[in-house]
């Protein structure tokens, strides 16, 4: 067994793509399957440089359809397998992600959102929120962590593997092109030093013993014959997901206790929102910020409570209302006014948030 990739803990300064590769390495990921697309490609660059030193595998597939399905195969074999993609690649990967939902395949996928629709830009957006949470023909039985810093990217890739293997739902770490390409400091660490034990994996295929002789064979399927049969299976998925959701859901609040105005944002936009809240508070403006860390499951109750006490919500995102729909669905029934601040495919800065909030007062 090769040495641990990271001994103890250390401060580093690197891009988010490099962070993702190191995190997967630290999380004892066994194999990555992937197909290059900007801006996630350097995850593969770093993984292919680092992984051979630690006996980990890699396969570059012919497209993202294959990347997703080979990842399913790897996980079914009992390996801590993962993939990463963005934009049009994420679109192609949705097919395999529905198989992972249906068959409870605990794969991990890092998404570095780029501009859309279509090829659009390779730079940045938050336009893959709907697709990552609900893509494909299904019900969105997934776990989606929306990260905002390199530290979180590192933490949640590691956590993502454990969440996936604990609850057996496909788990996404939703980053973006900024997080992929920017450099900032963070601490990388061996999970064990933080008391984090990696959840054991187990194979669903290729088990020991001769099937039919020593044991029953594994006959895994995602096709059902009747409406009733499918309904039963999906109902079980619903029940399991709903049971797990309260244990999985995560969020953060900033100065929301007495906030009259609450900015609701996720992912990297939360950085701008946090900075803006700090600045506005210094001027005595009662503004707060609510940030879901998990978009699936969504912290609906927590947001509802805060929203019910506020005079106004401002939903801010680098997309045309994808996150906004989740917010509105979560707080349905409240009469708190909601303002939308949408910048599809564009970054949002703290300066513009400060300006916007002041203008509306």
């Amino acid at each position, binding site marked *: 067994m090769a040495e641990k990739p990271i001994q103890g803990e250390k401060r580093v300064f690197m891009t988010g793509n490099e962070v993702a590769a190191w995190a997967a390495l630290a999380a004892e990921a*066994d*194999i990555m*399957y992937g197909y290059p697309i900007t801006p996630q490609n350097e995850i593969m660059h770093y993984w292919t440089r680092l992984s051979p030193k630690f006996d980990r*595998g890699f*396969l570059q*597939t*012919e*497209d993202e*359809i*294959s*990347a*997703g*399905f*080979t*990842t*399913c*195969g*790897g996980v*079914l*074999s*009992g*390996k801590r*397998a993962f993939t990463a993609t963005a934009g049009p690649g994420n679109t192609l990967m949705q*097919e*395999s992600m529905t*198989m992972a939902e249906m068959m409870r395949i605990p794969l991990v996928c890092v998404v570095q959102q780029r501009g859309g629709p279509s090829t659009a830009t390779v730079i940045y957006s938050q336009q893959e929120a709907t697709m990552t949470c609900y893509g494909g023909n299904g019900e969105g039985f997934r776990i989606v962590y929306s990260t905002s810093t390199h530290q979180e990217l590192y933490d949640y890739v590691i956590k993502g593997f454990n969440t996936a293997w604990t609850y057996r739902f496909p788990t996404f770490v939703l980053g973006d092109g900024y997080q992929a390409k920017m450099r900032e400091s963070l601490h990388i660490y061996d999970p064990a030093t933080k008391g984090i034990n990696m959840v054991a994996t187990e*194979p*669903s*295929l*290729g*088990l020991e*013993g*001769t*099937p*039919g*002789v020593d044991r029953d*064979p*594994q*006959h*895994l*399927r*995602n*096709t059902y014959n009747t409406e009733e049969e499918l309904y039963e299976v999906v109902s079980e998925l619903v029940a399991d997901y709903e049971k797990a959701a309260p244990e999985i859901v995560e969020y953060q609040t900033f100065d929301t206790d007495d906030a009259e105005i609450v900015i609701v944002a996720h992912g990297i936009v939360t950085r701008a929102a946090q900075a803006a809240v700090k600045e506005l508070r210094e001027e005595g403006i009662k503004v707060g910020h609510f940030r879901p860390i998990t978009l699936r499951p969504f912290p609906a109750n927590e947001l509802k409570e805060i929203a019910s006490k506020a005079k106004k919500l401002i939903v801010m995102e680098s997309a045309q209302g994808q996150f906004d729909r989740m917010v509105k669905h979560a707080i349905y029934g409240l009469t708190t006014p909601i303002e939308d601040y949408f910048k599809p495919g564009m970054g949002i800065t703290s300066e513009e948030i400060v300006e916007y909030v002041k203008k509306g007062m």
Partner: protein
Amino acid sequence: MSKAPNMPKSWREETKPHKFCPGCGHGLVLKALGQAIDELGIQDRVVFGCDIGCSLLSFDFFNVDSVQTHHGRTTPVVTGVKRARPDRICIAYMGDGGGYAIGSQHLVNAAARNEKITVILANNCNYGMTGGQMAPTSLPGMKTETTPYGRDPEVTGYPTQGPEMVSAITREGAYVARGTVANVRQLKNYIKKALQNQVEGNGFSFVEALSGCPTNWSTNAKDTWAFIEETMPKYFKVGELKAPAKKEE
């Protein structure tokens, strides 16, 4: 006095009679596969993957660990398993639609990468499960639900020559053959060689089996055999296309 049906040992008797139509060629291809698994003694190591289309009905066919995936995606799923568990003998089972249409990029690239897996493809000249539409392998002039006046090659092209294509893009070490359910013993031998090729770790192995679809062809037993034995071989030549050089003893 024999009392038990003479099924391959690797077949799962609890799921028999199987779900394929009367006279369906899948039963024969899977019989040949079952016999090959038995003769090689690899039942404890096989991971079997199947596609959508009629081939999905084989998901519980064998006493081997099996997984059914989406249309065309069996090759990548099985590739993923093989890459994660090189000690397993991984078989991807599909029809002509799954291998030559919706999953063709996976077949081509798995072959080009020389994945150490075995792909077995049943060619019955049409899409069976969805009700007899044109497949990449439908013959010129053949009437299907989407070529009701006969397949016009000017409009829809000529039948895909799968093994020929795979043979052209694979390197030494690959095994490629086309068998037929009209000769189960030969088909079994081809499949056995294909699996043996994987056991030895030589490279990609691929067997296409000419197969029958009496339901969608609307043929009786006589015409089914006539189509398989007389019509299909005019376009699809049965035989081995590629085999690794014999190892020096």
